[in-house]
């Protein structure tokens, strides 16, 4: 599935943050999202994931293709690692969780309650969820937060395997994952404010 974004303007709290954003994400490719804090990377990912509508522009090829991982992992502390993964597998209609457990070295932890995991382990579980969804386009928002060096390597390998299978990934991150992906710096797309006395529906 190719994700095509044309002339996108996105808003946060009703105010445009990024504008005139266009890019294409083809199968097998990774796109690394760069830009200073607060520029709107999270907003962009949420818009692409369909959680909020764009102000202007078109997003094609995203419908029901995206696995989205936000800052929070959506884990239930009173469920075990396996139960958490099985739940998301059932919701997304896939059957096997074993590859995900293997990829993120969760074998030792399967019967632990998610509430008893360390921050890094939780994050690994949250990322393992991406594999379970079976969706081709991964969208990850700062996926390496609280991961140690080995875990980052694990994650990079998982992404590489996903790309090799014809998937694609859009990753907002500041560290170098060693992926041969294109880099998209959204700093240049910062929305320019309109004139102050143009007092219209946006109240600006």
């Amino acid at each position, binding site marked *: 599935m190719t994700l095509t974004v044309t002339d996108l303007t996105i808003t946060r709290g009703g105010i445009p943050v990024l504008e005139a954003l266009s890019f294409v994400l083809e199968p097998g490719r990774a796109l690394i999202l760069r830009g200073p804090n607060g520029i709107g990377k999270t907003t962009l990912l949420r818009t692409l*994931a369909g*959680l909020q509508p764009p102000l202007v522009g078109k997003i094609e090829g995203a419908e029901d293709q995206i696995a989205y991982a936000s800052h929070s992992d*959506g884990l239930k502390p009173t469920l075990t690692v396996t139960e958490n993964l099985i739940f998301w597998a059932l919701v997304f209609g896939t059957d096997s969780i074993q590859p995900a457990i293997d990829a993120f070295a969760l074998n030792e932890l399967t019967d632990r309650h998610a509430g008893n995991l360390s921050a890094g382990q939780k994050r690994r579980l949250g990322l393992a969820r991406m594999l379970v969804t079976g969706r081709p386009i991964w969208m990850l928002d700062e996926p390496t937060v609280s991961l140690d060096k080995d875990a980052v390597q694990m994650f990079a390998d998982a992404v590489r395997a996903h790309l090799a299978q014809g998937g694609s990934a859009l990753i907002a991150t500041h560290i170098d994952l060693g992926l041969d992906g294109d880099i998209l710096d959204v700093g240049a797309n910062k929305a320019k404010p309109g004139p102050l006395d143009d007092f219209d529906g946006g109240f600006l």
Partner: protein
Amino acid sequence: MIALLLRDLKLAFRAGGGFGLGLAFFLIVTVMVPFAVGPQSSLLATIAAGVLWLGALLACLLSLDRLLALDWEDGSLDLLATAPLPLEAVVTVKALAHWLTTGLPLVLAAPILGVLLNLPVPGFFWLIVSLLVGTPALSVIGTFGAALTVGLKRGGLLLSLLVLPLYVPTLIFGAEVARRGAIGMETQTPLLMLAGITAATIALLPFASAAVLRINLR
């Protein structure tokens, strides 16, 4: 959908899930009533049906703010919204889970508490019937309220303020069935109205809840 239902039930029964809190609240409220109005059995018999309905309603209300807030806080709602499941189904399942863990136990406990309040014998049957028919509406309406206030920090109190007026018709007809049943009057009309309200809310309100939830997730 079944996976979500099972997960919610499992979460409710696990430690810290809050199952039984509503039931305990129902018990406490009912026990407090005679202290407030006096122990005369004739008076208690008159108000028993209404008190039990009100107690069930408040117990339902109590557990509403956890209904979606927990999934909101840990990000599950974001993920569910991007899942293949339509949000309408998600909120319906959430309401169903709420009813199974809160409404149904209340229905089963109500007759026992009816004894404490000296509910007349013919009233027991009608109390159970009215609660059985009425409490699903309470859960569905409550889900709408929970969806409205899900992102708010002080959502709990606001939730009550928003939901209680919406509960008025259900409370009126539900308590009316139980009260009429207790004194041996015909109950068909209010029961039909109650069933109508429940059916209509179950059919229509999930769309409003899902719409509201989508807005809150933006």
